[in-house]
Protein backbone atom coordinates (compact mmCIF):
# COMPACT_ATOMS: atom_id res chain seq x y z
CA UNK A 1 0.00 0.00 0.00
CA UNK A 2 2.81 2.38 0.81
CA UNK A 3 3.96 2.28 -2.81
CA UNK A 4 0.74 3.89 -4.00
CA UNK A 5 0.08 6.49 -1.37
CA UNK A 6 2.94 8.90 -1.86
CA UNK A 7 1.94 10.56 -5.09
CA UNK A 8 -1.50 12.05 -5.46
CA UNK A 9 -1.77 11.13 -9.10
CA UNK A 10 -1.11 7.42 -8.68
CA UNK A 11 -3.95 4.92 -8.50
CA UNK A 12 -3.35 1.77 -6.48
CA UNK A 13 -4.02 -1.57 -8.24
CA UNK A 14 -7.42 -1.80 -6.59
CA UNK A 15 -8.44 1.67 -7.68
CA UNK A 16 -7.80 3.73 -4.57
CA UNK A 17 -6.41 7.24 -4.51
CA UNK A 18 -4.87 6.96 -1.08
CA UNK A 19 -3.96 10.62 -0.71
CA UNK A 20 -7.59 11.58 -1.19
CA UNK A 21 -8.65 9.02 1.40
CA UNK A 22 -6.02 10.28 3.80
CA UNK A 23 -7.32 13.81 3.24
CA UNK A 24 -10.69 12.54 4.45
CA UNK A 25 -8.96 11.42 7.64
CA UNK A 26 -7.67 14.97 8.10
CA UNK A 27 -11.29 16.14 7.99
CA UNK A 28 -12.08 13.87 10.93
CA UNK A 29 -9.57 15.78 13.00
CA UNK A 30 -11.64 18.92 12.85
CA UNK A 31 -14.46 19.48 15.34
CA UNK A 32 -18.03 18.56 14.41
CA UNK A 33 -20.22 20.71 12.17
CA UNK A 34 -23.88 19.98 11.48
CA UNK A 35 -26.19 21.42 8.82
CA UNK A 36 -29.98 21.20 8.70
CA UNK A 37 -32.29 22.21 5.90
CA UNK A 38 -35.66 23.26 7.26
CA UNK A 39 -38.74 24.44 5.35
CA UNK A 40 -38.04 28.14 5.75
CA UNK A 41 -34.67 28.11 7.39
CA UNK A 42 -31.21 26.61 7.06
CA UNK A 43 -29.14 26.01 10.19
CA UNK A 44 -25.43 25.50 10.67
CA UNK A 45 -24.14 24.42 14.06
CA UNK A 46 -20.51 23.81 14.97
CA UNK A 47 -18.55 22.66 17.96
CA UNK A 48 -16.38 25.57 18.98
CA UNK A 49 -12.74 24.79 19.40
CA UNK A 50 -11.32 25.84 22.72
CA UNK A 51 -9.17 28.91 22.18
CA UNK A 52 -5.95 29.64 23.99
CA UNK A 53 -6.17 32.28 26.71
CA UNK A 54 -4.41 34.96 24.75
CA UNK A 55 -6.03 34.15 21.43
CA UNK A 56 -8.70 36.45 19.99
CA UNK A 57 -11.79 34.29 19.79
CA UNK A 58 -13.20 36.19 16.84
CA UNK A 59 -10.42 35.00 14.58
CA UNK A 60 -11.21 31.34 15.16
CA UNK A 61 -14.29 30.88 13.04
CA UNK A 62 -15.78 27.73 11.61
CA UNK A 63 -18.83 29.35 10.04
CA UNK A 64 -18.13 31.87 7.28
CA UNK A 65 -20.36 33.81 4.95
CA UNK A 66 -19.55 33.41 1.29
CA UNK A 67 -22.11 35.97 0.22
CA UNK A 68 -25.17 37.60 1.77
CA UNK A 69 -27.34 34.58 1.07
CA UNK A 70 -24.81 31.72 1.29
CA UNK A 71 -22.67 30.57 4.15
CA UNK A 72 -20.56 27.56 4.92
CA UNK A 73 -19.06 25.61 7.79
CA UNK A 74 -15.98 23.46 7.34
CA UNK A 75 -14.07 20.77 9.18
CA UNK A 76 -10.41 19.98 8.68
CA UNK A 77 -7.25 21.95 7.97
CA UNK A 78 -7.75 25.59 8.92
CA UNK A 79 -5.37 27.01 6.33
CA UNK A 80 -6.89 25.00 3.49
CA UNK A 81 -10.32 26.26 4.50
CA UNK A 82 -9.13 29.85 4.42
CA UNK A 83 -7.85 29.44 0.87
CA UNK A 84 -11.03 27.76 -0.35
CA UNK A 85 -13.26 30.34 1.32
CA UNK A 86 -11.33 33.22 -0.21
CA UNK A 87 -11.57 31.70 -3.66
CA UNK A 88 -15.29 31.07 -3.20
CA UNK A 89 -15.92 34.62 -2.00
CA UNK A 90 -14.11 36.09 -4.99
CA UNK A 91 -16.10 33.82 -7.29
CA UNK A 92 -19.38 34.96 -5.71
CA UNK A 93 -18.61 38.60 -6.44
CA UNK A 94 -17.17 37.89 -9.85
CA UNK A 95 -20.36 36.06 -10.76
CA UNK A 96 -22.49 38.95 -9.51
CA UNK A 97 -20.52 41.44 -11.59
CA UNK A 98 -20.54 39.29 -14.70
CA UNK A 99 -24.14 38.12 -14.85
CA UNK A 100 -25.68 40.63 -12.37
CA UNK A 101 -27.23 37.81 -10.36
CA UNK A 102 -26.07 36.39 -7.05
CA UNK A 103 -24.70 32.85 -7.24
CA UNK A 104 -27.03 29.96 -6.60
CA UNK A 105 -25.99 27.69 -3.74
CA UNK A 106 -25.48 24.85 -6.18
CA UNK A 107 -23.24 26.99 -8.39
CA UNK A 108 -20.87 27.97 -5.64
CA UNK A 109 -20.84 24.43 -4.27
CA UNK A 110 -19.94 23.15 -7.71
CA UNK A 111 -17.21 25.75 -7.93
CA UNK A 112 -15.70 24.66 -4.62
CA UNK A 113 -16.02 20.99 -5.53
CA UNK A 114 -14.36 21.54 -8.93
CA UNK A 115 -11.54 23.40 -7.23
CA UNK A 116 -11.05 20.52 -4.82
CA UNK A 117 -11.13 17.96 -7.62
CA UNK A 118 -8.45 19.84 -9.56
CA UNK A 119 -6.11 19.40 -6.62
CA UNK A 120 -6.63 15.64 -6.71
CA UNK A 121 -5.43 15.45 -10.27
CA UNK A 122 -2.37 17.66 -10.55
CA UNK A 123 1.10 16.65 -9.57
CA UNK A 124 3.03 18.39 -6.88
CA UNK A 125 -0.11 19.39 -5.03
CA UNK A 126 -2.04 17.65 -2.33
CA UNK A 127 -5.83 17.62 -1.94
CA UNK A 128 -7.57 20.16 0.30
CA UNK A 129 -8.05 18.60 3.71
CA UNK A 130 -11.50 20.02 4.35
CA UNK A 131 -15.12 19.06 3.99
CA UNK A 132 -17.66 21.85 3.77
CA UNK A 133 -21.37 22.25 4.52
CA UNK A 134 -22.77 24.99 2.31
CA UNK A 135 -26.20 26.41 3.06
CA UNK A 136 -28.33 29.18 1.67
CA UNK A 137 -31.43 30.22 -0.20
CA UNK A 138 -31.66 30.52 -3.94
CA UNK A 139 -33.54 33.24 -5.79
CA UNK A 140 -36.49 30.88 -6.06
CA UNK A 141 -36.69 30.87 -2.24
CA UNK A 142 -35.84 27.18 -1.87
CA UNK A 143 -33.47 26.33 1.02
CA UNK A 144 -30.40 24.29 0.11
CA UNK A 145 -27.77 22.31 1.97
CA UNK A 146 -24.78 20.82 0.18
CA UNK A 147 -21.77 18.91 1.42
CA UNK A 148 -18.39 18.71 -0.33
CA UNK A 149 -15.43 16.51 0.57
CA UNK A 150 -11.73 16.43 -0.32
CA UNK A 151 -12.28 14.27 -3.36
CA UNK A 152 -14.33 17.00 -5.01
CA UNK A 153 -17.72 15.34 -4.83
CA UNK A 154 -20.76 17.28 -3.70
CA UNK A 155 -24.26 16.22 -2.83
CA UNK A 156 -27.42 17.86 -1.60
CA UNK A 157 -28.59 16.78 1.85
CA UNK A 158 -31.57 17.32 4.10
CA UNK A 159 -29.26 17.19 7.09
CA UNK A 160 -25.64 16.17 7.49
CA UNK A 161 -22.63 16.35 9.77
CA UNK A 162 -18.88 16.51 9.13
CA UNK A 163 -15.75 16.36 11.27
CA UNK A 164 -15.09 14.44 14.47
CA UNK A 165 -17.93 12.11 15.55
CA UNK A 166 -19.81 12.92 12.35
CA UNK A 167 -21.08 9.36 12.17
CA UNK A 168 -22.72 9.58 15.60
CA UNK A 169 -24.38 12.88 14.72
CA UNK A 170 -25.55 11.60 11.35
CA UNK A 171 -27.13 8.56 13.01
CA UNK A 172 -28.90 10.88 15.44
CA UNK A 173 -30.16 12.98 12.55
CA UNK A 174 -31.36 9.92 10.65
CA UNK A 175 -33.46 8.97 13.66
CA UNK A 176 -34.74 12.43 14.49
CA UNK A 177 -35.07 14.31 11.20
CA UNK A 178 -38.80 14.14 10.58
CA UNK A 179 -41.22 16.53 8.95
CA UNK A 180 -42.40 17.42 12.45
CA UNK A 181 -38.88 18.13 13.62
CA UNK A 182 -38.40 20.80 10.97
CA UNK A 183 -41.99 21.99 11.01
CA UNK A 184 -40.99 25.42 12.18
CA UNK A 185 -37.76 27.37 12.42
CA UNK A 186 -37.36 26.94 16.14
CA UNK A 187 -37.68 23.19 15.89
CA UNK A 188 -35.02 23.05 13.20
CA UNK A 189 -32.66 25.09 15.37
CA UNK A 190 -33.33 22.82 18.32
CA UNK A 191 -32.67 19.75 16.21
CA UNK A 192 -29.26 21.13 15.24
CA UNK A 193 -28.37 21.87 18.85
CA UNK A 194 -29.62 18.49 20.05
CA UNK A 195 -27.54 16.77 17.38
CA UNK A 196 -24.44 18.64 18.51
CA UNK A 197 -25.09 17.99 22.20
CA UNK A 198 -24.77 14.29 21.43
CA UNK A 199 -21.07 14.72 20.86
CA UNK A 200 -19.99 18.08 22.23
CA UNK A 201 -18.30 17.97 25.59
CA UNK A 202 -19.29 20.57 28.17
CA UNK A 203 -22.59 21.46 26.53
CA UNK A 204 -23.94 24.72 25.20
CA UNK A 205 -21.00 26.99 25.78
CA UNK A 206 -19.01 25.12 23.17
CA UNK A 207 -21.58 25.49 20.41
CA UNK A 208 -21.78 28.11 17.72
CA UNK A 209 -24.89 28.49 15.60
CA UNK A 210 -25.80 30.37 12.45
CA UNK A 211 -29.08 30.52 10.56
CA UNK A 212 -30.33 31.97 7.30
CA UNK A 213 -34.03 32.67 6.92
CA UNK A 214 -35.62 33.28 3.54
CA UNK A 215 -34.76 36.79 2.25
CA UNK A 216 -32.80 37.56 5.37
CA UNK A 217 -29.07 37.82 5.89
CA UNK A 218 -26.96 35.38 7.90
CA UNK A 219 -27.57 35.57 11.63
CA UNK A 220 -25.01 34.32 14.13
CA UNK A 221 -26.46 33.34 17.49
CA UNK A 222 -24.98 34.91 20.58
CA UNK A 223 -23.89 32.75 23.49
CA UNK A 224 -26.98 33.83 25.46
CA UNK A 225 -29.37 32.84 22.69
CA UNK A 226 -27.72 29.43 22.41
CA UNK A 227 -27.91 28.99 26.16
CA UNK A 228 -31.65 29.75 26.04
CA UNK A 229 -32.16 27.09 23.41
CA UNK A 230 -30.06 24.58 25.36
CA UNK A 231 -32.09 25.26 28.51
CA UNK A 232 -35.31 24.73 26.58
CA UNK A 233 -33.99 21.44 25.26
CA UNK A 234 -33.00 20.30 28.76
CA UNK A 235 -36.48 21.17 30.04
CA UNK A 236 -38.07 19.21 27.21
CA UNK A 237 -35.85 16.26 28.03
CA UNK A 238 -36.86 16.38 31.66
CA UNK A 239 -40.53 16.55 30.67
CA UNK A 240 -40.11 13.53 28.46
CA UNK A 241 -38.37 11.61 31.27
CA UNK A 242 -41.12 12.53 33.74
CA UNK A 243 -43.79 11.36 31.32
CA UNK A 244 -41.92 8.09 30.82
CA UNK A 245 -41.56 7.43 34.53
CA UNK A 246 -45.27 8.25 35.03
CA UNK A 247 -46.17 5.72 32.37
CA UNK A 248 -44.11 2.97 33.98
CA UNK A 249 -45.58 3.77 37.41
Amino acid at each position, binding site marked *: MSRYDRAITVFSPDGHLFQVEYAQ*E*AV*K*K*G*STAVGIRGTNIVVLGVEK*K*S*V*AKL*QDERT*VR*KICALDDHVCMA*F*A*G*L*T*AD*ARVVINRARVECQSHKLTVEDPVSVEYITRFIATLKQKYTQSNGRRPFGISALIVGFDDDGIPRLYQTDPSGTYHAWKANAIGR*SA*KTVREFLEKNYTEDAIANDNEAIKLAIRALLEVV*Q*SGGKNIELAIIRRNQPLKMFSAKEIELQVNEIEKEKEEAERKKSKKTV
Partner: protein
Amino acid sequence: MATFFGEVVRAPCRAGTEDEEEDEEGRRETPEDREVRRQLARKREVRLLRRQTKTSLEVSLLEKYPCSKFIIAIGNNAVAFVSSFVMNSGVWEEVGCAKLWNEWCRTTDTIHLSPTEAFCVFYHLKSNPSVLLCQCSCYVAEDQQFQWLEKVFGSCSRKNMQVTVLTCRHVTDYKTAESTSSLHTPFLKALKTQNFREPLCCSLLEQPNIVHDLPAAVLSYCQVWKIPAVLYLCYTDVMKLDLITVEAFKPVLSSRSLRGLVKNIPQSTEILKKLMTTNEIQSNIYT
Protein backbone atom coordinates in the same frame (compact mmCIF):
# COMPACT_ATOMS: atom_id res chain seq x y z
CA MET B 1 32.39 -4.14 -14.58
CA ALA B 2 32.25 -0.71 -16.21
CA THR B 3 30.16 2.07 -14.78
CA PHE B 4 28.23 4.61 -16.80
CA PHE B 5 31.22 6.87 -16.97
CA GLY B 6 33.49 4.13 -18.29
CA GLU B 7 35.54 3.57 -15.16
CA VAL B 8 36.22 0.00 -14.26
CA VAL B 9 35.03 -0.97 -10.81
CA ARG B 10 35.50 -4.30 -9.15
CA ALA B 11 32.11 -5.87 -8.55
CA PRO B 12 31.55 -7.13 -5.00
CA CYS B 13 31.97 -10.87 -4.89
CA ARG B 14 29.58 -12.82 -2.68
CA ALA B 15 31.81 -15.89 -2.63
CA GLY B 16 34.20 -14.09 -0.32
CA THR B 17 36.85 -11.56 -1.01
CA GLU B 18 40.36 -12.48 -2.08
CA ASP B 19 42.00 -10.27 0.49
CA GLU B 20 40.06 -11.64 3.40
CA GLU B 21 42.89 -11.18 5.84
CA GLU B 22 43.07 -7.45 5.21
CA ASP B 23 39.34 -7.04 5.68
CA GLU B 24 39.32 -9.10 8.85
CA GLU B 25 41.85 -6.80 10.43
CA GLY B 26 39.61 -3.89 9.64
CA ARG B 27 36.61 -5.71 11.06
CA ARG B 28 38.28 -6.76 14.30
CA GLU B 29 36.92 -4.92 17.28
CA THR B 30 39.19 -2.30 18.66
CA PRO B 31 39.28 -1.53 22.36
CA GLU B 32 37.56 1.74 21.55
CA ASP B 33 34.68 -0.11 19.93
CA ARG B 34 34.34 -2.29 22.97
CA GLU B 35 34.37 0.70 25.27
CA VAL B 36 31.74 2.50 23.20
CA ARG B 37 29.59 -0.60 23.20
CA ARG B 38 29.98 -0.97 26.97
CA GLN B 39 29.04 2.66 27.54
CA LEU B 40 26.03 2.36 25.31
CA ALA B 41 24.87 -0.74 27.15
CA ARG B 42 25.29 1.06 30.45
CA LYS B 43 23.34 4.05 29.14
CA ARG B 44 20.51 1.82 27.97
CA GLU B 45 20.34 -0.10 31.21
CA VAL B 46 16.94 -0.18 32.86
CA ARG B 47 17.22 0.84 36.51
CA LEU B 48 14.46 0.29 39.01
CA LEU B 49 14.85 2.84 41.77
CA ARG B 50 13.35 2.95 45.22
CA ARG B 51 10.75 5.64 45.61
CA GLN B 52 12.13 9.12 45.33
CA THR B 53 15.70 8.04 45.90
CA LYS B 54 18.50 7.20 43.58
CA THR B 55 19.21 3.78 45.01
CA SER B 56 18.35 0.76 42.93
CA LEU B 57 16.27 -2.06 44.25
CA GLU B 58 18.37 -5.12 45.02
CA VAL B 59 15.65 -7.55 44.04
CA SER B 60 12.94 -7.29 41.46
CA LEU B 61 9.93 -5.14 42.29
CA LEU B 62 7.44 -7.97 42.67
CA GLU B 63 9.83 -9.89 44.87
CA LYS B 64 9.97 -6.94 47.22
CA TYR B 65 6.25 -6.17 46.97
CA PRO B 66 4.39 -9.42 46.36
CA CYS B 67 1.25 -8.76 44.46
CA SER B 68 -2.01 -10.44 43.64
CA LYS B 69 -3.24 -7.83 41.18
CA PHE B 70 -0.99 -5.92 38.83
CA ILE B 71 -2.42 -3.20 36.61
CA ILE B 72 -0.10 -1.77 33.97
CA ALA B 73 -1.07 1.30 31.96
CA ILE B 74 1.17 1.92 28.97
CA GLY B 75 0.87 5.07 26.88
CA ASN B 76 -0.47 8.49 27.77
CA ASN B 77 -4.17 7.74 27.24
CA ALA B 78 -4.09 4.57 29.34
CA VAL B 79 -2.12 6.46 32.01
CA ALA B 80 -4.70 9.27 32.05
CA PHE B 81 -7.50 6.72 32.40
CA VAL B 82 -5.83 5.02 35.33
CA SER B 83 -4.96 8.39 36.92
CA SER B 84 -8.53 9.63 36.84
CA PHE B 85 -10.50 6.47 37.51
CA VAL B 86 -8.33 4.13 39.53
CA MET B 87 -5.83 6.27 41.40
CA ASN B 88 -8.50 8.71 42.36
CA SER B 89 -10.48 6.10 44.30
CA GLY B 90 -7.98 5.23 47.02
CA VAL B 91 -4.66 6.15 48.50
CA TRP B 92 -1.78 4.93 46.43
CA GLU B 93 1.84 5.00 47.56
CA GLU B 94 4.73 5.12 45.17
CA VAL B 95 6.99 2.10 45.59
CA GLY B 96 9.48 2.63 42.83
CA CYS B 97 10.15 4.02 39.41
CA ALA B 98 11.96 2.77 36.36
CA LYS B 99 14.51 5.02 34.76
CA LEU B 100 15.67 4.18 31.32
CA TRP B 101 17.10 5.94 28.35
CA ASN B 102 16.70 5.32 24.68
CA GLU B 103 16.43 7.51 21.63
CA TRP B 104 12.73 8.22 22.25
CA CYS B 105 12.74 8.66 25.96
CA ARG B 106 13.23 11.71 28.14
CA THR B 107 12.54 10.67 31.74
CA THR B 108 12.51 13.32 34.40
CA ASP B 109 11.87 13.34 38.13
CA THR B 110 8.75 11.62 39.33
CA ILE B 111 7.71 14.38 41.72
CA HIS B 112 5.52 16.51 39.47
CA LEU B 113 4.04 14.10 37.01
CA SER B 114 1.80 14.93 34.12
CA PRO B 115 0.64 12.53 31.44
CA THR B 116 2.59 14.41 28.80
CA GLU B 117 5.94 13.65 30.40
CA ALA B 118 7.60 10.33 29.89
CA PHE B 119 7.96 8.29 33.07
CA CYS B 120 7.42 4.83 34.49
CA VAL B 121 6.23 4.74 38.10
CA PHE B 122 4.95 1.93 40.31
CA TYR B 123 2.38 2.33 43.08
CA HIS B 124 0.65 0.09 45.56
CA LEU B 125 -2.69 0.59 47.27
CA LYS B 126 -2.16 1.52 50.90
CA SER B 127 -5.28 -0.28 52.06
CA ASN B 128 -4.34 -3.43 50.16
CA PRO B 129 -0.62 -3.53 49.40
CA SER B 130 -0.92 -6.57 47.19
CA VAL B 131 -2.54 -4.43 44.50
CA LEU B 132 0.14 -2.86 42.33
CA LEU B 133 -0.19 -0.32 39.59
CA CYS B 134 2.28 0.81 36.96
CA GLN B 135 1.98 3.98 34.92
CA CYS B 136 4.37 3.80 32.02
CA SER B 137 4.34 6.58 29.51
CA CYS B 138 7.89 6.24 28.27
CA TYR B 139 8.86 4.11 25.33
CA VAL B 140 10.71 0.93 26.30
CA ALA B 141 12.89 -0.16 23.38
CA GLU B 142 13.10 -3.79 22.24
CA ASP B 143 16.50 -4.38 23.82
CA GLN B 144 15.27 -2.94 27.10
CA GLN B 145 11.99 -4.86 27.40
CA PHE B 146 13.64 -8.02 28.74
CA GLN B 147 15.55 -6.01 31.34
CA TRP B 148 12.34 -4.21 32.34
CA LEU B 149 10.56 -7.52 32.81
CA GLU B 150 13.41 -8.97 34.81
CA LYS B 151 13.65 -5.92 37.06
CA VAL B 152 9.91 -5.85 37.61
CA PHE B 153 8.91 -9.50 37.73
CA GLY B 154 12.23 -11.21 38.30
CA SER B 155 11.82 -14.47 40.15
CA CYS B 156 8.76 -13.44 42.09
CA SER B 157 6.14 -15.92 43.16
CA ARG B 158 3.83 -16.31 40.21
CA LYS B 159 0.98 -17.90 42.06
CA ASN B 160 -2.28 -16.04 42.63
CA MET B 161 -1.21 -13.15 40.48
CA GLN B 162 -3.29 -11.51 37.83
CA VAL B 163 -2.04 -8.93 35.38
CA THR B 164 -4.13 -6.38 33.49
CA VAL B 165 -2.47 -4.27 30.81
CA LEU B 166 -4.07 -1.21 29.22
CA THR B 167 -2.65 0.44 26.14
CA CYS B 168 -3.48 2.27 22.92
CA ARG B 169 -2.61 1.82 19.31
CA HIS B 170 -3.38 3.84 16.20
CA VAL B 171 -6.31 2.47 14.23
CA THR B 172 -4.22 2.43 11.04
CA ASP B 173 -2.44 -0.58 12.55
CA TYR B 174 -5.71 -2.48 12.75
CA LYS B 175 -6.07 -4.99 9.94
CA THR B 176 -9.57 -5.95 9.01
CA ALA B 177 -11.50 -7.14 6.01
CA GLU B 178 -14.20 -4.54 6.74
CA SER B 179 -14.05 -1.10 5.26
CA THR B 180 -12.21 1.28 7.59
CA SER B 181 -15.01 3.81 7.27
CA SER B 182 -17.32 1.41 9.12
CA LEU B 183 -15.03 1.25 12.16
CA HIS B 184 -16.29 3.21 15.14
CA THR B 185 -13.04 4.45 16.60
CA PRO B 186 -12.02 4.39 19.35
CA PHE B 187 -12.78 0.75 20.14
CA LEU B 188 -11.40 -1.86 22.56
CA LYS B 189 -9.96 -5.23 21.77
CA ALA B 190 -8.63 -7.81 24.22
CA LEU B 191 -5.85 -10.36 24.18
CA LYS B 192 -5.36 -12.80 27.04
CA THR B 193 -3.03 -15.57 28.19
CA GLN B 194 -4.12 -19.16 28.37
CA ASN B 195 -4.55 -19.09 32.14
CA PHE B 196 -6.89 -16.10 32.16
CA ARG B 197 -10.37 -17.43 32.77
CA GLU B 198 -12.48 -14.40 33.60
CA PRO B 199 -14.99 -12.88 31.21
CA LEU B 200 -13.66 -10.17 28.94
CA CYS B 201 -15.02 -6.64 28.65
CA CYS B 202 -14.78 -6.57 24.88
CA SER B 203 -14.17 -8.82 21.87
CA LEU B 204 -10.87 -10.59 21.31
CA LEU B 205 -8.28 -9.19 18.95
CA GLU B 206 -8.66 -11.01 15.67
CA GLN B 207 -5.88 -12.36 13.49
CA PRO B 208 -3.71 -11.16 11.75
CA ASN B 209 -3.46 -8.27 14.21
CA ILE B 210 -0.56 -8.38 16.63
CA VAL B 211 0.44 -6.45 19.71
CA HIS B 212 3.74 -4.57 19.85
CA ASP B 213 6.30 -3.19 22.28
CA LEU B 214 6.07 -3.45 26.06
CA PRO B 215 2.47 -4.71 26.24
CA ALA B 216 3.45 -7.61 23.98
CA ALA B 217 6.52 -8.32 26.10
CA VAL B 218 4.47 -8.39 29.30
CA LEU B 219 1.81 -10.63 27.80
CA SER B 220 4.42 -13.02 26.36
CA TYR B 221 6.14 -13.18 29.75
CA CYS B 222 2.84 -13.97 31.45
CA GLN B 223 2.00 -16.64 28.89
CA VAL B 224 5.38 -18.32 29.36
CA TRP B 225 5.13 -18.26 33.14
CA LYS B 226 1.43 -19.24 33.09
CA ILE B 227 0.28 -16.05 34.81
CA PRO B 228 -3.35 -15.11 34.06
CA ALA B 229 -3.08 -11.84 32.16
CA VAL B 230 -5.27 -9.76 29.90
CA LEU B 231 -4.42 -6.87 27.62
CA TYR B 232 -7.07 -4.30 26.72
CA LEU B 233 -5.97 -2.51 23.59
CA CYS B 234 -7.76 0.64 22.47
CA TYR B 235 -7.55 1.43 18.79
CA THR B 236 -7.90 5.16 18.30
CA ASP B 237 -7.41 7.72 15.59
CA VAL B 238 -5.94 10.31 17.95
CA MET B 239 -2.62 9.34 19.42
CA LYS B 240 -2.15 12.32 21.67
CA LEU B 241 -3.99 12.68 24.99
CA ASP B 242 -7.67 12.73 24.08
CA LEU B 243 -10.86 12.58 26.15
CA ILE B 244 -12.83 10.32 23.82
CA THR B 245 -9.98 7.79 23.64
CA VAL B 246 -9.56 7.71 27.41
CA GLU B 247 -13.29 7.24 27.88
CA ALA B 248 -13.19 4.27 25.51
CA PHE B 249 -11.47 2.35 28.32
CA LYS B 250 -14.57 2.66 30.51
CA PRO B 251 -15.86 -0.91 29.83
CA VAL B 252 -12.74 -2.16 31.63
CA LEU B 253 -14.11 -0.67 34.87
CA SER B 254 -16.60 -3.53 35.00
CA SER B 255 -13.85 -6.19 34.92
CA ARG B 256 -13.22 -8.07 38.15
CA SER B 257 -9.74 -6.69 38.56
CA LEU B 258 -10.81 -3.05 38.44
CA ARG B 259 -14.32 -3.24 39.82
CA GLY B 260 -13.30 -3.18 43.46
CA LEU B 261 -10.83 -0.37 42.92
CA VAL B 262 -13.05 2.22 41.27
CA LYS B 263 -15.47 4.09 43.45
CA ASN B 264 -16.40 7.57 42.38
CA ILE B 265 -17.01 7.60 38.65
CA PRO B 266 -18.59 11.09 38.22
CA GLN B 267 -15.75 12.64 40.16
CA SER B 268 -13.29 10.71 38.06
CA THR B 269 -14.84 12.10 34.90
CA GLU B 270 -14.38 15.62 36.27
CA ILE B 271 -10.75 14.92 37.12
CA LEU B 272 -10.22 13.56 33.64
CA LYS B 273 -11.68 16.68 32.06
CA LYS B 274 -9.38 18.85 34.16
CA LEU B 275 -6.42 16.71 33.15
CA MET B 276 -7.33 17.24 29.52
CA THR B 277 -7.62 20.99 29.71
CA THR B 278 -4.37 21.42 31.59
CA ASN B 279 -2.54 19.35 29.05
CA GLU B 280 -4.18 20.52 25.88
CA ILE B 281 -1.57 21.65 23.45
CA GLN B 282 -3.16 24.42 21.46
CA SER B 283 -3.00 23.43 17.84
CA ASN B 284 -4.60 25.58 15.22
CA ILE B 285 -3.94 23.24 12.35
CA TYR B 286 -7.39 21.68 12.46
CA THR B 287 -10.64 23.50 13.03
